């Protein structure tokens, strides 16, 4: 087991290095750098001015060298200008030249400086990640139990009316991407002119004219049922169908197993068969699926945070990519790649741990 984990971790680090290198290469292509120079300097810079701006800050070195600097394996590039001022990778506004460190990479814990928000990347991204963490937590709280319940209910009597209804619901939810369900929810539940809100208001059931809020901006500090429900269920709905279908398949398979038939013939009640005999074995497969859902959730988070303008990690990705904020984009991709790889690792280990047939051999 130890060796297995070690090998997986090693593989994970290699993958992470490869992926970050690709992102580094793509974000550091010349057109991007040119745009960066023009937004940082001024838009009417000549080509020579752009080249010298980039040269001074070390952007024109070979990509592997720049990558090593960004990782913190090599000292950051620095140029002393004619007037004695220092420019380079590690230079931050407000830090004296003599205090500027030689190394400033990921290994030193320095994630770079966001050129758009004019602040260290780690500060900005930290608060954004916290917001997204809150969103993800509630998504999980809603999604996992309901998906498992739907899957188990549908799978325990395969082919029954309940199964058909719930399966149709799960197919429908997997066919509804977040930007479709989000738009439908906002139009029907968060509008003051259409949908459920005005009707409930007329009946005197709710105070305002809209049932929920269409933006989740205020949920940053103060998440309420009103401003946080729609983003959460929009993400949860898309993932739910898939997990539910996997649970259903796994449950249906377990219910046809020999030991369930034995229990049935012994006269164990249906409730006990489901709760005590079938459920535990049926939940091994969905565990893996839930873990592997994280990368998809990341997608959903980007879409939903854009749609509901909730300033989290996904919103940061879109703004960083849209505004050519290179170091921020790199940090964002490191985080998302790490999330994906880490959940893959957990799902592999968890699968081995949960499944006695593999664990013992």
């Amino acid at each position, binding site marked *: 087991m130890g060796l297995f984990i070690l090998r997986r971790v090693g593989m994970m680090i290699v*993958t992470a290095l*490869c*992926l970050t290198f690709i*992102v580094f290469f*793509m*974000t550091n*292509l*010349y*057109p*991007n750098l040119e*745009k960066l120079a023009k937004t940082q300097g001024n838009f009417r810079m000549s080509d020579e001015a752009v080249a010298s701006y980039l040269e001074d800050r070390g952007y024109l070195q070979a990509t592997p060298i720049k990558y090593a600097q960004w990782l913190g394996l090599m000292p950051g590039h620095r140029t002393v200008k004619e007037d004695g001022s220092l420019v380079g990778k590690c230079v931050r506004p407000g830090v004296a030249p003599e205090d500027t460190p030689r190394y400033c990479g990921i290994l030193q814990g320095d994630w770079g400086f966001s050129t758009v928000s004019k602040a260290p990347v780690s500060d900005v991204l930290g608060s954004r990640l916290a917001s997204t963490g809150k969103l993800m937590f509630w998504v999980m709280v809603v999604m996992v139990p309901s998906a498992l319940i739907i899957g188990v209910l549908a799978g325990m*009597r395969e082919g*029954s*009316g*309940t199964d058909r*209804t*719930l399966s149709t619901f799960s*197919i*429908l939810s*997997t*066919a*509804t*991407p977040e*930007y*479709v369900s989000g*738009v*439908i929810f*906002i*139009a029907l539940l*968060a*509008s*003051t*002119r*259409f949908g459920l809100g005005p009707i409930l208001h007329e009946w005197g059931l709710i105070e305002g004219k*809209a049932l929920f809020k*269409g933006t989740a901006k205020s949920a940053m500090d103060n998440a309420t049922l009103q401003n946080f429900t729609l983003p959460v269920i929009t993400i949860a709905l898309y993932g739910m169908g898939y997990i539910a279908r996997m649970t259903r398949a796994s449950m249906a398979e377990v219910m046809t197993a020999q030991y369930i038939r034995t229990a049935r013939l012994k006269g164990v009640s249906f409730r006990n068969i489901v709760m005590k005999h079938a459920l535990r074995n049926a939940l091994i497969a969905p565990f893996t699926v839930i873990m592997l859902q994280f*990368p998809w959730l*990341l*997608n959903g988070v*980007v*879409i939903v945070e*854009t*749609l509901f303008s909730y300033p989290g990690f*996904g919103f940061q*990705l*879109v703004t960083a*990519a849209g505004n*050519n904020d290179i170091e921020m*984009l790199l940090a*964002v*991709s490191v985080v*998302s*790649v790490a999330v*994906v*790889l880490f959940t*893959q690792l957990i799902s592999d280990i968890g699968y081995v741990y949960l499944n006695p047939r593999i664990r013992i051999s």
Partner: protein
Amino acid sequence: MEKLTWTGSVGTVLDPIFSIIAVIFIVAVALQIVSSFIFKPAAVITNADGTLSAGSGPIELITRVSKYSLLGLIALAVLYIIAGMVMPFGKAGIIGAMAARFSPVWLALFVTFILSIVYKRKLGLYGKLFDSTIGMIGFGLVMFWVYTAIFSGVFDMIATHDPLTQVSGMKNKVPGTPMRGADAAECGTACWYILGGDNLARDVFSRMVEGSWIVIRIAPLATLFAFMVGITLGLPAGYFGGRLDTGLSFLANLILAFPVILLFYLLVTPEIVATGIPSFMAMVLFVFPIIFVGVLINSRYYTRPRVRTPLLAGIMVVMVWIYLSLISAPGTVINILPSSMDLFDIPGGILVVFVSVVFVNSPTVFRIVRGLALDIQTRDYVAAAQTRGEGPWYIMLWEILPNARGPLIVDFCLRIGYTTILLGTLGFFGLGLPPESPDWGTTINDGRKLLSIYPHPALVPAFSLLSLVLGLNLLADGLREESLRD
């Protein structure tokens, strides 16, 4: 000119009936779930003559009610459509007007279904689809959009207006608004914006219809390319194993670990497009179909050079020519072919979108094909072919691949749906396709800014996309069910 209501004069009769049956149906379905926990299913009655008949109890009663109310709803929907087609345009309301515009689609669907059901025993797996209700519903939804796309894209039939023309005074108008100053005597079907106008005063209905043509052209083709790439790499990886497998699997996992949206943002921005990376990726990805077809034909006919050589040469010349005209476009990095020989140019945005969608999909296909190849190569017929002395490529393409077709066809349907979702995502973030493009993702993105005041410009494409993807998922489900039954 007066504004159209939703159902027009038909609605006064049909609407109340429809809503009553709809309520009955919803209540019955909810009761069905609840009652399955409370009551036991009725026991089957054994008759004196040895036959069995179904018992009746509360569960059976509720099931029957839900079934008949569903049938009633479907019958009413058909009535609405027929009324719209028969009555003069606009008299049967918005739904009737839409039904009338879609008449060629209804006709084509009707003919398809009648022919398929009559000959279903002779049509193999396709015919078996018509044994499953789910599969039929899915197929119907998919074919509805396919026919819509073909009739509007090729024959220019369904849309009432040009999808890009802006008409003054029609900005954000609600569904059924008549055109300003339109003369009832001559405007005919162009009298109304059937589904209203968007924030740039364009016709929502026509944009939805034209949008389907974009989706139906790109999604299946991109999926097909992803399958070519996945199959060409996945079969040898699974069959040979070893270093090749390790290397390719590592690459596939690398791409799979990339969050899709990040990848899109990295690939589809104008700066990256300017460097030509997408064009080079297109160059690499589009080679795979040529390799695939070449190897496929060669491995089959290499013992008969007199058939093989002309066949292979002919097909290769055509494919390479198409390949070159596909990747070479004036003004981009790759401009190899002289313009006189260039058959067609793909607009830059579409090519980039196409390439990134293929790129995202192929690793998953690779993994599926590799898994199937690993499983199938242990079968006896593969061993028999090896003993016969067949080459590895013959075994892969003519022994393993045909036997893997079941899961691959199912996954193909699911993946077209997924590709449609990806295309929508690209449009939603305004990546790749031009901003005025009528495709559904871009239209949703356009409409979402004023969503709580004017929901119709975003809701119409949202429901279209939903129905197409749902249809593909149901179709895949039906196919899976029927192919498992063999």
